[in-house]
């Protein structure tokens, strides 16, 4: 078997058919992960008694592989009668996996808001929910923007995991081409180059965005 460059170029349009799904999965998963991550963090802060429980949940999410979580959702949900499109199930899986990391981002972002802010809010008589909503969250957003940007790229790079539950994203359509033509080397090469290009473009875009917003990565 030899590597055929003209074949590799010829199949690019067929491989690219999956790009819409890839972008869609990345966006759904990012929003889902951020929302769920913020939920975990607020829950962790809300009450001292449930804190260790939520901490365990977050650590457990971070201690199991994304692929295993995706398989779990994909095979276990139908058992309980919940059959959803694979794209949605996979995006939930990625959201769940990354929510564990996002919660840590939000934790650091909230911790970085000076204690005087919440003390002032309390002495002004704001309720807990109002304090979070009007005082803490707006200030936190600035702290978390850079790490969230970094995780958005990680999520983009994890989207091909959904190929294993037969979602036709980039890797999935490359695998389709491979099984149609019995040639694996060229489609896999193409998808490798495409992902590298996509992630480099995404990194450049996010760096640009951070610069425009006047953000710098917080020190770790």
């Amino acid at each position, binding site marked *: 078997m030899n*590597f055929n460059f003209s074949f590799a170029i010829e199949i690019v349009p067929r491989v690219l058919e999956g790009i819409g799904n890839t972008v869609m999965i990345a966006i759904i998963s990012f929003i889902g992960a951020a929302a769920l991550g913020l939920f975990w963090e607020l829950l962790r802060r809300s009450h001292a008694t449930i804190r260790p429980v939520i901490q365990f949940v977050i650590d457990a999410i971070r*201690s199991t*592989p994304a692929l295993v979580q995706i398989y*779990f959702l994909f*095979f*276990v949900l139908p058992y309980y009668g919940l059959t959803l499109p694979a794209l949605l199930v996979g995006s939930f899986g990625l959201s769940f996996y990354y929510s564990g990391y996002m919660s840590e981002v939000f934790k650091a972002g909230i911790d970085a808001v000076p204690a005087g802010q919440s003390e002032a809010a309390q002495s002004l008589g704001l309720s807990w929910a109002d304090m979070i909503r009007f005082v803490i969250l707006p200030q936190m957003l600035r702290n978390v923007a850079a790490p969230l940007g970094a995780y958005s790229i990680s999520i983009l790079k994890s989207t091909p995991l959904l190929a294993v539950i037969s979602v036709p994203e980039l890797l999935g359509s490359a695998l389709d081409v491979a099984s149609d033509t019995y040639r*694996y080397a060229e489609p896999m090469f193409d*998808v*490798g180059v495409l992902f590298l290009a996509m992630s480099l473009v995404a990194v450049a875009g996010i760096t640009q965005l951070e610069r425009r917003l006047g953000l710098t990565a917080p020190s770790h």
Partner: protein
Amino acid sequence: MSFFAILRSIYEGFGITAAVATLGLFFAIPFAVIAGVLQHFATGPLRWIVTAIIEFWRSSSVIVLLYAFYYTLPAFGIFLSGITVGAMVLGFNIGGYGSQSVRAALQSLNKGQREAGLALGLSRFDVLRLIELPQAITAMFPTFINQAIQLIKGTTLVSLIALTDMTFRAKQISELGYNPVGIYSALALSYLILCYPVTIFGRKVERRFATRKAR
């Protein structure tokens, strides 16, 4: 099959999981140290080359790289075993992230350390080997633990290139009978047993380092 039997059956794949993770570290650690040090010291074209190599391993999607190397290398006449390809791809990917920790740790060292070493008559290489690297590696220990966890979790991907790791065992068992809840709970538990203690250990170390820094 009882839950315990499933769990035991999944752990038949532990050998492959452990082998890929351990071999992966043998790729990751040297790559992280060498690439990180080179990126810190090199100038001009060498620096570009090192940066390009690091970015290639760091910016690509691991699962895509795994497929790409596994299926493309033979077309170029390079035949490697699945374990080698898996360990290499996962190792270099984690090593790419690690190299950035090494570089950052070297950059954040007080330059008085280097000056003192040079003033004592040590060669530049000895200053790096005896003074800078030991401190840098100590400083990046918490990061190292987190990346080791990423590597262990990453080994699940080798099930996709037909290596019989724990995840692959679960897929095999799932063909014997319909019991998704039992099998996939057991699979998640198997990885939890492996990684949870490391996660907790990592958190402890991180906290200790944070308080040490604050002092």
